[in-house]
Each structure stands twice: as structure tokens, then as C-alpha cells.
């Protein structure tokens, strides 16, 4: 793999950009691999990357039914933060956030990580209490956050109306090193690094069955034939339940559509990420100038990748109250992704009832921010067969044991 650098740009500019090589190879599947990962989203690709980097396992295939990064990884609003309440969540999300800080260098690929700061507005007394509690917990967890007052909110984000009639802004939980990154680049950067390690990324190849023998996985049936494997990792977000059904078990998980929309591009007006959980709206400005807006989830299971129309109105209505300037904006595009919501709204990184099959899913509405940490933890689980400290609390057995990770208050909103 040729490194990307200032020198490379100069060299290519001098020869009309004829010398750039393909970022990753697109091989036909081999008969068998040590590890097959289903799903080339951020989590699947990060799992592959850390299998190679941390454990030297490179005889790996990543099988993707569409194009890599075409699932939720390429459909999300790219908010990165780690200000969670519970210790297991803070540990894995902060691991991920810290890996984002050096991801561009680690991958030699500009993922445009922008730690512009994330602010979660407190607009009710209950939210003030909740966020102060989270800030306190974060202090113990070593996650830098603080609770700030309304004047500071206005200073950091002048377009916010802090004295709205229904829900005035009473303060905010502020994480200065939270922010955004370029979602496609995260998938592309990992894909390029994995391909460079000799892994096969097989796109346009849908897994249609899981073959087993004596309770252990032996491979997958795909639209490109059978692919054998010693270990199988299912990392398919909203399709996790469907994958589990193929392997003969069920999950504590439901799939719903979550939406986002972007406005026409405008001049820079907002250089932080703002989330308003009470009115259910959140917004940031992309480098192109579009306002990136997170919408609502459907109230019923579906796989439409579209989402219900009325959520658009609800989302915009909520935002106009806190950001009056939104009322003058034209919206450009709207889309949806199928998110995987578990019984306690926390993810699953776990062994499964099928031997040598592992699952990573349930990141729901908020798993872009966790991609590197999740891949790190999942690679350890797949390589060793047992979860390491980051993944241990996220096992499927927590639902039998009643050992939930109650983050729905912190993460119930879509982001």
C-alpha cells in the first residue's frame, strides 16, 4: 500500500493523478478463512482491523451484502461522545473516543475527526439533576465532562435560543473532546488497512445461512457460494436478529428505522454539536455547511431503511423552538437506517449459543461513536474465545441474570 502524504499529493499532481492505486482489493471469496466477519460496516471492519493489528490474525474475510459502509455507518449523524453514566459504557465509549483522536494517523487516512465539543442541553429540572450526576460519574471514570450554565451555552452556540417559552435552556452537559468524524472515511480507512493486511473484503455478497456441525459453526452460505470458517462474527446491526435466526437462536433485540436529514448548505453558524433530548432534536454543521439533523425512530419494527414521514415534521418542529433560524432553512435530503435496539438499550458483544460464533450488535441509535472501541473489544473476544474487560459486561447472559446496563436515560434519544 502506498502511503498517503503531502509528498504523494505533489507527486500525483505532477502526473495528472494517474498513479493512485485502488484503496482496497475486491477479491473472489476463498474456500475457507480463519475468521469470517459478516457486515462491512464500521464495527465489522474495525473488528477485522484489530484482529490483524492486536492478534496477528489476517486470514479473514469481511462479507458484505451491499457496499462497505452502506449500512448505518454511512447513514448516521456522526456524533462522537463518551459522557455515559454507567461504568461499562463509559469504558468502551471512552476507549473508542480516544482511538478516534489518533485514527487518521493510525490508518494513514483522513477520517476528519473534529473534536468540536458536544453539548447535551438540560431543559427540565430532571435533566439538570441527571446531567450533574453524569458529570460526577464521568469525573470518577476519567472522562472529561462538565455541567455548564445557560450563559456558557449561549456563548458556545450563539444560534441557540435559551429562553424559549416551553423548554428554556437551563444548562448543559459539555464534553469538550466530543465531536464528529467523516463516517464514510472511517469505513474506507479501515477497509484500506484491512485489505493491506491481506484480508478479503467481499462486497455484493449476502450471507443467507449459517452452516453448523455438532453445535459449532463451520461456515456461511452466501450468494457467492459456501465460505468455510473456524470462527464467525456477526456484525450486522439491524439485521442481527435475522442472522441469529439463520443460526437457530433469537436475540433480545428489535429493529426499527431511524431517520436523519440535512438542510441546504449555509455559511458557518455553529461549531459545536448540540443535542436537545427533551424536545428530541440534535444538530451539527457539516464541513460543507449543511445542518445535519437527527430525526426520530419508528414506533414499530421494520426493515424499510426509510422511516415514517411524520417524524420529519416532529423533528423540525422541536428544533425550531431551540434554533429559530431553522425555520428559514430548506431541507435537502432525508434518509433512514435500520437500528438494532436491545432490551436494555445497551449493545451486545458476546458469545452465542452456537460454538465459535460471536455477535456484535445492539448499538442501536448510537454506535458510530463506538466503532474503534467496539472493534477492539470484539477482536479480543473472537481471537481468545472469551471476552476481555471491555466486552465482559456486554454479554448476552446479562438478560438472563437481570444484570442490565441501564443507559436508556443517557442514550434513549437517537444519536
Amino acid at each position, binding site marked *: 500500500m502506498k502511503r498517503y502524504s503531502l509528498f504523494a499529493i505533489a507527486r500525483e499532481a505532477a502526473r495528472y493523478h494517474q498513479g493512485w492505486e485502488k484503496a482496497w482489493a475486491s477479491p473472489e471469496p476463498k474456500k475457507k478463512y480463519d475468521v469470517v466477519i459478516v457486515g462491512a460496516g464500521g464495527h465489522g471492519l474495525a473488528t477485522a482491523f484489530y484482529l490483524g493489528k492486536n492478534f496477528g490474525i489476517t486470514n479473514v474475510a469481511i462479507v458484505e451484502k451491499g457496499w462497505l459502509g452502506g449500512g448505518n455507518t454511512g447513514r448516521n449523524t456522526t456524533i462522537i461522545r463518551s459522557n455515559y453514566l454507567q461504568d461499562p459504557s463509559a469504558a468502551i465509549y471512552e476507549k473508542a473516543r480516544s482511538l478516534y483522536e489518533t485514527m487518521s494517523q493510525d490508518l494513514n487516512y483522513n477520517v476528519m475527526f473534529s473534536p468540536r465539543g458536544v453539548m447535551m442541553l438540560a431543559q427540565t429540572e430532571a435533566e439538570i439533576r441527571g446531567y450533574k450526576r453524569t458529570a460526577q460519574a464521568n469525573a470518577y471514570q476519567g472522562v472529561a465532562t462538565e455541567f455548564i450554565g445557560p450563559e456558557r451555552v449561549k456563548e458556545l452556540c450563539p444560534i441557540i435560543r435559551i429562553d424559549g417559552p416551553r423548554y428554556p435552556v437551563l444548562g448543559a452537559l459539555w464534553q469538550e473532546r466530543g465531536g464528529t468524524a467523516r463516517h464514510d472515511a472511517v469505513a474506507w480507512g479501515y477497509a484500506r488497512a484491512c485489505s493491506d493486511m491481506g484480508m478479503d473484503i467481499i462486497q455484493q455478497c449476502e450471507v443467507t445461512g449459517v452452516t453448523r456441525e455438532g453445535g459449532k459453526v463451520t461456515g456461511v452460505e452466501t450468494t457467492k457460494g459456501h465460505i468455510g470458517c473456524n470462527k464467525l462474527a456477526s456484525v450486522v446491526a439491524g439485521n442481527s436478529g435475522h442472522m441469529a435466526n439463520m443460526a437457530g437462536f433469537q436475540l433480545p433485540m428489535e*429493529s426499527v428505522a431511524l431517520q436523519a436529514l440535512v438542510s441546504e448548505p449555509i455559511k458557518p453558524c455553529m461549531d459545536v454539536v448540540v443535542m436537545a433530548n427533551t424536545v428530541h432534536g440534535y444538530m451539527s454543521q457539516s464541513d460543507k455547511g449543511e445542518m445535519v439533523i437527527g430525526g426520530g425512530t419508528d414506533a414499530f419494527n421494520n426493515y*424499510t431503511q426509510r422511516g415514517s414521514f411524520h417524524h420529519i415534521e416532529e423533528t423540525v418542529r422541536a428544533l425550531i423552538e431551540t434554533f429559530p433560524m431553522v425555520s428559514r432553512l430548506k431541507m435537502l435530503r432525508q434518509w433512514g437506517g435500520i437500528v438494532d435496539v436491545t432490551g436494555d438499550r445497551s449493545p451486545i458483544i458476546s458469545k452465542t449459543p452456537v460454538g465459535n460464533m460471536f455477535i456484535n450488535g445492539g448499538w442501536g441509535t448510537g454506535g458510530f461513536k463506538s466503532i474503534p472501541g467496539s472493534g477492539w473489544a470484539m477482536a479480543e473476544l473472537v481471537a481468545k474465545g472469551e471476552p476481555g474487560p471491555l466486552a465482559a459486561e456486554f454479554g448476552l447472559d446479562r438478560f438472563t441474570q437481570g444484570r442490565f446496563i441501564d443507559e436508556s436515560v443517557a442514550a434513549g434519544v437517537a444519536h
Partner: protein
Amino acid sequence: MLTLECPCCGVRGEETEFHGGGEAHLKRFGPGSSDAEFETYLFTRENPKGVNFERWRHANGCGKWFHAARCTMTLEVFATYSAQTYEPPADVIAAIKAKRPEWEMPA
């Protein structure tokens, strides 16, 4: 957009008139059951890609609960039927099979 017809009052409306109530026909397990049964009842869901049986309430209408058989990929509703039943009745199964011959009722 999802449209449903309430079998209780016969009114047809779009989804904002209704409130989704999750998977239908869950078998209830309580005290004395095994941990696995209790977990299944509380958390494990079919979450199928295709035909789904679910509970709905006509929240902005007659207020009654009912059941629906619906495709989670196309939002096509095969039938809505009474809430006072433990399993989908034969005519609902037939309505589904007429549209999806390959579909089998999950165990």
C-alpha cells in the same frame, strides 16, 4: 407510510392514529418459571424480516387494542384481528399465505 384498519371500530387511519404495542402472542411466564423462559418472555423477540404479528392500540380513535399481521420489509398489512386471541386465527394465516406462499408460521 403505514396504514391500518382498526377491527374494533372499522376506521382506517395512518400510523399516527395508532400506537404500536410490540410483538403479539407472547407466552407469559412469571414466578416459578425457569430463568430462560422468563428471559424469553421479557426480552427475546422474533424480530422477523417479513411477516410479523404485533399488537396495536387505536390510541387516537376508539382506544381499543387489536392485533395486526404485517410485513416488516414492505409495511403491507395482511390482516388486523381481535386482541382476544392467543394465536392468529385461520383466516389471518390464510390471508398471509395467499400473499406469501413460501411463508411458514414460526414454531
